[in-house]
């Protein structure tokens, strides 16, 4: 039986990262990410973390330092949140276009003004097109497992892409839960040594990132798209291997929960995804045939699997983000996936912006509105005083 650690999402992420033995960690504080880099600093002090710990002067530099280190061929890790992630934006593109598998936790937090440190996914959703693989976790165990899996995924020679592991502010980052750990020797056996696609090496001098003409650049993008498509195959393989080795499984790109025979399937992410399971249990008890497909991986997007779901059931999408002038991002993606494939009904809810709590009772209400044909195409759930 493996060891259990009872701790917050951030300390669990720090533990997972250190087990992966990154050579370089770049650290910069921002609530609610701070305890993650503090956690690694403690491991550095105790000698459990033996790599470089660079205290940069901004998140832009944190990502630049990870890019620089990764370009020498080593393993890198960092963490951020909200404004820190936004400040990194330019370097997020840089990391993915340079095909450097930097692994990073992002603690989903509201974007200001006004200043607000609670959970909201607009920070990472607005980095959707940076080329990063994006996971959204719904428990501390999933954070632990996904961080380790992400190194294997991002560093895989057919992927060579950075991976962002997002989880909600406070609900996970600062909430203690018991987590089964994986032993160092097992992590070592699970993670192969990184084989970089290219690296800075005086014995083989190359110039990386100089001026590139349109026809060549287009190929760079195409190759990136191919790797994202390949990741759709690899993520289930890695999840399966993890399950076989350690008995834990959180789904592939989607996690299905009571979808068999469902008339409606709920799609949600992050902490709302966890809350959705309780809602589904209660709805099922009441005889309502509702299931859950929790979106674990937002990029690459599980288009094909969502198409399959739409053959069996109507879809209900909850977004803790908004693309102003349109709708929730997950809602848009789900509908785009279905275009030309089915004409399944899809309903969208915006909920939990600004860190507003979204308890399972509210999720049940959203689902009942749909089941009872009282739902509009899109609704801001629980919005009052406007």
């Amino acid at each position, binding site marked *: 039986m493996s060891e259990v650690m009872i701790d917050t999402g951030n300390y669990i992420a720090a533990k997972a990262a250190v087990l992966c033995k990154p050579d370089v960690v770049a650290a910069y504080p921002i609530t609610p990410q701070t305890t993650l880099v503090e956690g690694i600093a403690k491991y550095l002090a105790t000698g459990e973390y033996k790599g470089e710990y660079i205290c*940069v*002067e901004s998140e*832009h530099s944190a990502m*630049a330092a990870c890019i620089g280190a990764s370009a020498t061929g080593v393993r890198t890790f960092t963490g951020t949140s909200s404004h820190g992630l936004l400040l990194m934006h330019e370097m997020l593109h840089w990391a993915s276009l340079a095909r450097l598998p930097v692994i990073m936790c992002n603690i989903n937090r509201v974007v200001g003004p006004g200043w607000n440190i609670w959970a909201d996914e607009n920070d990472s959703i607005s980095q959707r097109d940076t080329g990063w693989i994006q996971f959204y976790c719904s428990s501390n165990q999933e954070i632990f497992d996904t961080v380790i899996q992400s190194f294997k995924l991002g560093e895989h020679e057919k992927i060579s892409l950075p991976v962002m592991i997002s989880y909600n502010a406070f609900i996970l980052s600062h909430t203690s839960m018991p987590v089964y750990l994986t032993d160092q020797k097992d992590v070592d056996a699970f993670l192969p040594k990184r084989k970089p696609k290219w690296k800075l090496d*005086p014995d083989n*001098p190359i*110039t990386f990132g100089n001026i590139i003409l349109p026809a060549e650049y287009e190929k760079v993008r195409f190759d990136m798209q191919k790797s994202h498509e390949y990741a759709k195959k690899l993520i289930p393989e890695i999840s399966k291997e993890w399950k076989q080795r350690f008995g834990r499984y959180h789904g592939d790109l989607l996690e299905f929960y009571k979808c068999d025979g469902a008339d409606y399937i709920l799609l949600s992410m992050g902490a709302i995804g966890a809350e959705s399971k309780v809602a589904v249990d209660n709805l099922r008890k009441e005889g309502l045939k509702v299931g859950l497909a929790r979106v674990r991986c937002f990029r690459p997007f599980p288009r094909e699997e969502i198409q399959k779901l739409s053959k069996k059931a109507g879809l209900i999408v909850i977004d803790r983000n908004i693309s102003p002038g349109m709708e929730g991002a997950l809602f848009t993606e789900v509908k785009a996936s279905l275009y030309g494939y089915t004409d399944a009904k899809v309903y969208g809810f915006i909920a939990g912006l600004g860190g507003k709590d979204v308890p399972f009772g509210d999720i049940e209400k959203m689902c009942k509105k749909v089941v009872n044909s009282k739902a509009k195409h899109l609704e801001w759930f629980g919005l009052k005083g406007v």
Partner: protein
Amino acid sequence: MAIKDLPVEECYIPGCAACPGCPATMALRVVYKALGRNTVKIIPACCTAVIESLHPHTSFDIPTMNIAFEAAAAGASGVEAGFRMQGKTDITVVAWAGDGGTYDIGIQALSGALERNTNFIYICYNNEIYSNTGIQRSGATPYGAWTTTTVTGKTEFRKEMGEIIQAHHIPYAAQTCIAYPEDLFKKLQKAKSIHGPKYVEIMAPCPPGWRFPMEKTVEMGTMAVETGAWALYEVENDKVTFNGRSKLILEGKIERKPIEDWIKYQGRFRHLFKPKKDIKRIKAIEDHIDQMWERYRKCYQ
């Protein structure tokens, strides 16, 4: 040492896309000769990102990584850490940036890397403008100079990057100039031999940016030093030593030449001479340089 004594090996290989008379190219040749092949270079957006040639070709025979405009020093911190973790501590890590990437947008990352004691050499080639984007003002552009964003002449004086760097108390910092390749060579070799953060700034007169004929680059560099607009010095653990002409100027052994001797040959100052001589502004430039030297004398003599 004379130019003929510099190593013959070239890491600056054919394929360079610079303007004729480009100071960055002249400097880079010497930089490579001084640092040797076991060097890795990080360059942000600047002219060098263009002159290095088109993908998949290159005009550099040492490993080079391009990085975002403001990120050279932070990227270098990462590169250095990455090599150190692999035990490759003999590689010289160099960030090579223009004055825009140094004085302005990159100053935060630079300051951070110096404070963190990153073991690297940061080289700024200072052509006193953003030339990649077509001659706009930077924090290094001198008072009175025309650029496309200071059409009637810049109304502010440049910042003293040397003093900003010195406030970081790093083991080695130096100012040099493309007109003195031996000085550049020696300073880089010294920088290479010292552990910790090193900063070297190279005065780099740019023909299209300053509006002078391409064969005059070296002369413009010499005059920058002879008029005292630019000083050659080095700072080792807070001890400042002036070199060459600048030493003589500092010690009062020679007079610095009038600034007019330098600026009248540069089209970017033409409006100070035509249609009518702008005595007030020329004097302001002269006074500013005097003040600079007074400060140098007070602090460093």
